């Protein structure tokens, strides 16, 4: 009798717990979320809901042409916008499977990133490892509504691109967690990868409305100062940034040799930023140590010769220095320490940093920077000479 009574109590209580249960088919899986600004300076949120396979390929009527659904709403906050959207959706939006968040350039330039990030940090469903991309002015909706014709949603495609590229190229991708961390670190400014659509084929008709001829380009990098975006980087600068942050493993770089080209793949890289204080003045040593192998050569060089290799190494070092100098120049121009020099000073000389923290940017353009690059080519591929 006692046991039955306890069982009864437990049962009633358990059944009260049901309120959190949600049937899977009521979920709308959101894989991509874009946030921008509309004309009234309100936040616009565009989300992409993944469509089910049978809904996409279903030929017998009702089948959608795109593999995803788009919802759009605006409000003063992201939550308000989502709430407005939810009223006309027949699903409950589920954000745990968001793969990519795209933020609009205008929003970042005017409102800054910090207020936007709060939603993602606070929300239980969104993961901190979600990738953050930045769309150029006015292209947010176009990017999100582009259907590449792979029969899957954009979020999944983008995630696949990023995981692939991460091991094969120079990249500057950041996820929410890293972005928040950078924002919270003193002496460091944010940079983040951008997203754009470019033509898949060599020629591209601007009238082509069907996105099947387009593809995504994730090479752009946006830089920030004090939570607000201030500019884009050029190709050279981008490479320099990746070299300094040490995220080029597996990346390919082509260097000119006697009007011909030679391609190298970076197999190992170690970048170190070491601040030094001499007589009350800071100067920074950037040490980049990389190992590469030859991918392709158009030259008629003798790779069995030690001197040739040395020469290639020297040229590579020069190229790298050029890239790094370019990014340094840009950083100084923008007065944004996205390379994190201040942070390294803080790590090494915390007391010194505390004193000069507030006037950092008055020093910043004049800080002496030594760039030391060591390159080693250790593999010439399957053949010695071509």
């Amino acid at each position, binding site marked *: 009798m006692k046991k039955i009574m306890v069982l009864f109590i437990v049962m009633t209580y*358990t059944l009260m717990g049901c309120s*959190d249960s949600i049937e899977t088919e009521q*979920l709308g899986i959101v894989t991509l979320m874009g946030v921008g600004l509309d004309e009234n300076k309100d936040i616009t949120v565009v989300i992409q809901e993944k469509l*089910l*396979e049978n809904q996409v390929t279903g030929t017998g009527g009702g089948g959608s042409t795109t593999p995803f659904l788009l919802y759009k709403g605006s409000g003063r906050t992201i939550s308000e916008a989502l709430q407005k959207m939810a009223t006309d959706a027949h699903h409950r939006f589920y954000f745990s*499977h968001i*793969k990519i968040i795209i933020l609009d350039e205008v929003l970042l330039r005017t409102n800054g990133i910090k207020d936007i990030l709060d939603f993602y940090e606070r929300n239980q469903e969104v993961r901190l490892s979600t990738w953050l991309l930045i769309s150029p002015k006015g292209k947010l909706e176009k990017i999100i509504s582009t259907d590449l014709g792979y029969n899957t949603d954009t979020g*999944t495609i983008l995630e696949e691109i990023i995981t692939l590229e991460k091991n094969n190229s120079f990249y500057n991708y950041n996820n929410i967690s890293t972005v928040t961390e950078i924002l919270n670190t003193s002496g460091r400014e944010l940079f983040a990868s951008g997203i754009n659509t470019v033509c898949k084929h060599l020629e591209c008709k601007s009238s082509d409305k069907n996105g099947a001829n387009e593809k995504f380009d994730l090479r752009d990098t946006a830089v920030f100062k004090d939570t607000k975006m201030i500019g884009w980087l050029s190709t050279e600068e981008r490479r320099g940034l990746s070299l300094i942050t040490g995220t080029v493993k597996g990346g390919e770089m082509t260097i000119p040799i006697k009007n011909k080209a030679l391609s190298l793949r970076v197999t190992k890289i170690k970048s170190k930023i070491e601040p030094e204080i001499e007589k009350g003045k800071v100067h920074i040593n950037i040490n980049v140590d990389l190992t590469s192998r030859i991918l392709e050569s158009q030259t008629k060089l003798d790779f069995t010769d030690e001197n040739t290799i040395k020469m290639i190494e020297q040229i590579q070092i020069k190229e790298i220095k050029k890239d790094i100098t370019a990014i340094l120049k840009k950083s100084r121009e923008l007065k944004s320490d996205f390379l994190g020099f201040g942070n390294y000073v803080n790590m090494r000389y915390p007391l010194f940093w505390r004193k000069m923290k507030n006037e950092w940017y008055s020093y910043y353009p004049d800080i002496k920077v030594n760039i030391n690059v060591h390159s080693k080519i250790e593999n010439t591929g399957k053949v010695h000479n071509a």
Partner: protein
Amino acid sequence: MFFNIKNRNHKNKDVTKKNSMPSASLEVYTEAKLEGIKISNSIIENIEIINKIVGENTDLVTRHFTLGRNKLIPAVLFYFDNMIDSAHIDLNIIQPLLTDAYTSGLTTGPEIIKAIELGNIISRGQMTKVNEMKTLTNGLLEGDAVLLIESVNEAYVLSAKGYAHRAVTVSDIEPVVNGPKDAFIEVLSVNLSLIRRRIHSPNLVFQSLKVGKVTQTTVCVAYIKGICSTELVTEVWSRISKIDIDGILGSNYIEEFISDEPFSVFPQVRNTDRPDVASAALLEGRVVIVVDNTPKILILPGEFFSLLQSAEDYYNRYFFSTVIRLLRYLAVFIALTLPAFYLAAANFHQELIPTDLLVSIISARTGVPFPNFLEAFLMEGTFEILREAGVRLPRPIGQAVSIVGGLVIGQAAVQASIVSPLMVIVVSLTAIATFTIPQYNISQSIRLLRFPLMILGATLGLYGLMLGLLFLLIHLASIRSFGTPYLAPLSPLKLSDLKDTVIRAPLWVHIKRPSEIARNKNRMDSNKN
């Protein structure tokens, strides 16, 4: 399968009165009533009493004869037809008494009686003298023949048991590929012989007692002296002797009476129909209970991990056995929690499911009219019904059930969107995982426990599942089976015993016996110190 069917020549009952109820005495003979009756000198009186007690039975054979060529002494032989081996009766009892006695020169009745007293004439192996009617009837009912002689106030109970029984066949329930294949049958003596044949030790003890007021079933407690702890034997003995029931028809009657935690879902006694498993258990210092009329014997104490072991583990190479054992534990876990976990994940923790899988779950579930929880219950319930039907039906039809149920209904149900294909996978994986559990009784409890866990998983998500599992863990940790903690040797942890639970270490590593059970812990001489 063949039966030793005996001929029915000895029936000499008058069957002329057709269809009229033979007059039976209405007196009921209880043990207490039989207690006081002594066997008297007069054979007539004795026959009368026996007839009063069991006389109205058709299968009672009363064979009158006289002893001696002169000084005739009337004698009578009672036995139940088909409970005895008639060849034995003919060759070893009747023939010596009626013909062989004279060849040895005996002629008078008293002489013959004297020879019988000395144990000379009757060539049947077992012969006991009794002087109480109670023991006489007991022997008679067990299948002995009873010889009564005029002016002797004792009866001779001659063992001539021989009744129809199944031959020793291959084990149905615990089949193995490599090991010995013989299995216990319903006859106690055969079962004992199967164990005795494996352990030729003077220390192997079979002690029996009668349980069941009406059935008087023989229950035999077996153990090896010196290995098994005496407290365990006395505890088992006292629990069995306390059983108060009218009849024991199977070994699980005993099991239910002697379990420590009768309210627990988990079986606390291992049962097997394999003599080699029983012998191994005896060697580990356990007590084995053999019950007459049951092919299943009981092994005590039966702690959790011993219930998950299969005989096959010891006949395969140890690498393989270890892997199989680990796989089996995984299977137990799957069988217990997979549906609950699926429900928790699908209803509460969709983030645990990879995106693509979640999408396919959703697309599979579009059009299914029931919520996840109901669908899961429906499927699990259907499966249990099919399984029960398959077990109850005769074997050839049983397979038809699985075909109809599994293939036809399953396929149709999926196509008609009554259930989603993923749920079918979950349920069948669970079912298959249940089949890997070698002990039928523990697989039943795991099947049963799946349902409350499903409720918890569907209502409170993983928190509920965790509460349920923790509850089970606490419950399991609190049970003892005959003094042995149920979760031994995992908790309380005995590292040396894990060699034979988590893994199956090579046999030469098992230097010690399970420490919680055996008294003499050394398996090998090298460790004697």
